[in-house]
């Protein structure tokens, strides 16, 4: 009879409590610890190695064994490590947002053409010298490095505004994705033309920028980078509820009370701000944006954006710090192209994690 439930079933039901879609504070704390360690290591290693306890002494305001170390840490390594951490966090979170919004595991922070816009801005500034014999930046009266960032910001910002304007009008996210791709192709085409008519040294300068680097950011520029990325990350945190609903697709999200248009604009604004500012100051950093979200989902086995957003920020920062550390080739004076390093170390790592955890199937039905 159905009255007597076998005791085994009863006990398994009571023994396995309801799964708790919790916030995973332990995992996040572990990730924070890893990031802190990577941060300290990147302050310690470089062309000159500074012992870790000396780094701590400097950071706490003490006197290190050698006075030059203070200068090295404060003027070179600290801004660079901060930039790497911020950029990694920004790209990780931005990639996560794009993958969820477009429900596409191959989406990355640059699908809307933000990096192409920045590239176009930089190309215009760097390559236009061939025509006028004075670069646009000297016309603008800005020092070289700052104006590169300014040009990239203008390019990324223009694409951001275009994307937002389109997001207001366009009904479907897939259309938006296609339009973003088209914007990207357009910008690349103009860059190609500029490259074709430019001189060799200028082309080299452009290519160097496109390798990506965390090293070029000064403390002055940090005053722009920190608040922009900070605001973008806060906006991303505020949008986690909408992102969670969007996991089920736009129709379901709407039926659960999400204002799709508003959410989409918020997500695009946050994502483009994050990706745009990173590209402006560090060049087009590929790979991190697409890989970090997959890595985090696999590590946490969760789809909850309340956990994934902080996790992507922390893991992204850690990955960027490690990539930068390797690109420095500690103990030598060689600096490898950052983009090559991220993919060289990152791609096998992600492949290994995804295959080992057997998660490829689960994400977005792939």
């Amino acid at each position: 009879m159905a009255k007597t439930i076998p005791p085994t079933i009863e006990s398994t039901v009571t023994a396995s409590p309801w799964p708790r879609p919790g916030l995973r504070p332990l995992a996040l704390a572990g990730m924070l610890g890893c990031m802190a360690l990577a941060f300290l290591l990147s302050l310690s290693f470089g062309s000159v190695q500074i012992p870790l306890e000396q780094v701590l002494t400097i950071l706490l305001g003490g006197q290190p064994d050698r006075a030059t170390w203070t200068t090295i840490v404060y003027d070179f390594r600290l801004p660079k490590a901060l930039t790497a951490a911020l950029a990694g966090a920004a790209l990780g979170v931005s990639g996560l947002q794009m993958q969820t919004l477009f429900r596409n595991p191959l989406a990355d922070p640059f699908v809307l053409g933000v990096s192409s816009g920045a590239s176009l801005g930089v190309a215009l500034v760097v390559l236009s010298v061939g025509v006028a014999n004075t670069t646009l930046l000297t016309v603008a009266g800005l020092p070289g490095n700052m104006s590169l960032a300014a040009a990239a910001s203008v390019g990324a910002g223009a694409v951001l505004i275009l994307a937002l304007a389109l997001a207001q009008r366009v009904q479907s996210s897939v259309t938006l994705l296609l339009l973003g791709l088209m914007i990207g192709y357009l910008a690349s085409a103009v860059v190609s033309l500029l490259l074709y008519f430019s001189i060799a040294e200028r082309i080299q300068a452009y290519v160097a920028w496109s390798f990506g680097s965390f090293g070029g950011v000064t403390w002055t520029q940090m005053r722009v980078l920190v608040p922009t990325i900070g605001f973008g990350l806060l906006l991303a945190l505020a949008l986690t509820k909408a992102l969670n609903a969007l996991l089920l697709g736009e129709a379901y999200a709407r039926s659960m009370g999400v204002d799709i248009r508003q959410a989409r604009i918020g997500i695009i604004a946050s994502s483009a701000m994050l990706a745009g500012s990173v590209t402006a100051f560090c060049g087009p950093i590929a790979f991190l944006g697409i890989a970090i979200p997959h890595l985090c989902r696999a590590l946490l086995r969760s789809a909850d954006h309340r956990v994934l957003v902080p996790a992507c920020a922390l893991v992204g920062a850690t990955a960027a710090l490690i990539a930068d550390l390797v690109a420095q080739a500690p103990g030598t004076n060689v600096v490898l192209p950052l983009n090559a390093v991220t993919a060289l170390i990152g791609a096998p790592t992600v492949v290994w994690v995804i295959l080992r955890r057997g998660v490829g199937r689960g994400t977005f039905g792939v």
Partner: protein
Amino acid sequence: MNATVLATENLSIGYAPRRGPRRVIAAGLNLTLHAGEVACLLGPNGVGKSTLLRTLVGMQPPLAGRVFLDGADLATLSVREIARRLSVVLTERIEAGHLTAYALVALGRHPHTDWTGRLTPRDEEMVRWALDAVDAVCLSARLVHELSDGERQRVMVARALAQEPLVMALDEPTAFLDLPRRVEMMRLLRRLARETDRAMLLSTHDLDLALRAADTLWLLAPGGVMHVGAPEDLVLGGAFEATFAGDGITFDRYQGHFHIHPPARRRVALIGDGLVGAWTARALERAGCVVVAANEPALLRVVIGGDDRRPCWEVRANGATLQRVGSLREVVALVQGDHL
């Protein structure tokens, strides 16, 4: 009669493209749905069932007229206010990885939680109640993409329940399910409607099941004509038959189901009855024959021999035995053959 939870007033549905003329699918609809009622929206493919459903749940604006949800005009409610009164189960596949059934159902609490999406103890209680109500407690720790179609559909119903709506709109909730699962799903929806006093509106192609399970049928016929009534009334009035009439399909008013067969050609007399007789008649009908009683004139006669466990058939033409066979497949081949 229970309280009206969803009603329409002179509703016109269809599409109004920016360029080109408006395409009206149905006009002047005055529909009502009451608490605790199960209404099935039926109609041939392409007649506009989905458009009607989308208009009723606010996913598409009406061309004219109004939709009232819980007494309030749908157009004046915010998406969040609608979400607290109405939830949906769509045919769209969920494609999220690492999402447990529990987390999926918890997403249903979305319109009730604060901006962070934090679940209060009451929210968690609702999620558990919803999982229990669809008998899916054992699935709660499983990943959604690993569930079978039937299990996933139950979990999707639980998600819609957890939203605590007055009305649940389900778009073809029995699609992709096998027959036992379809019956189970309809029974579940009926039970939930009764026990929780919610209104269920579902579109379906399962005519048979809808006839048995629905309190009300909304029958959308080609040309945008809507017949509303108890299933039995619609059958007796002939509306059911007229809506689905077509070549090679006839509706049996006594049995309440459809017969599918090509236009009948040959008269075949069937000698024999019981279980084997019933299935033989079915096979012959499928083969395009008109089955007549043993005493009626016919060119072909099929005589059942053997017993229920090992039946055999004798096919006779013009009084002479043509062949003795051991399966209905061979019988069908014989009566369809041109060698007669």
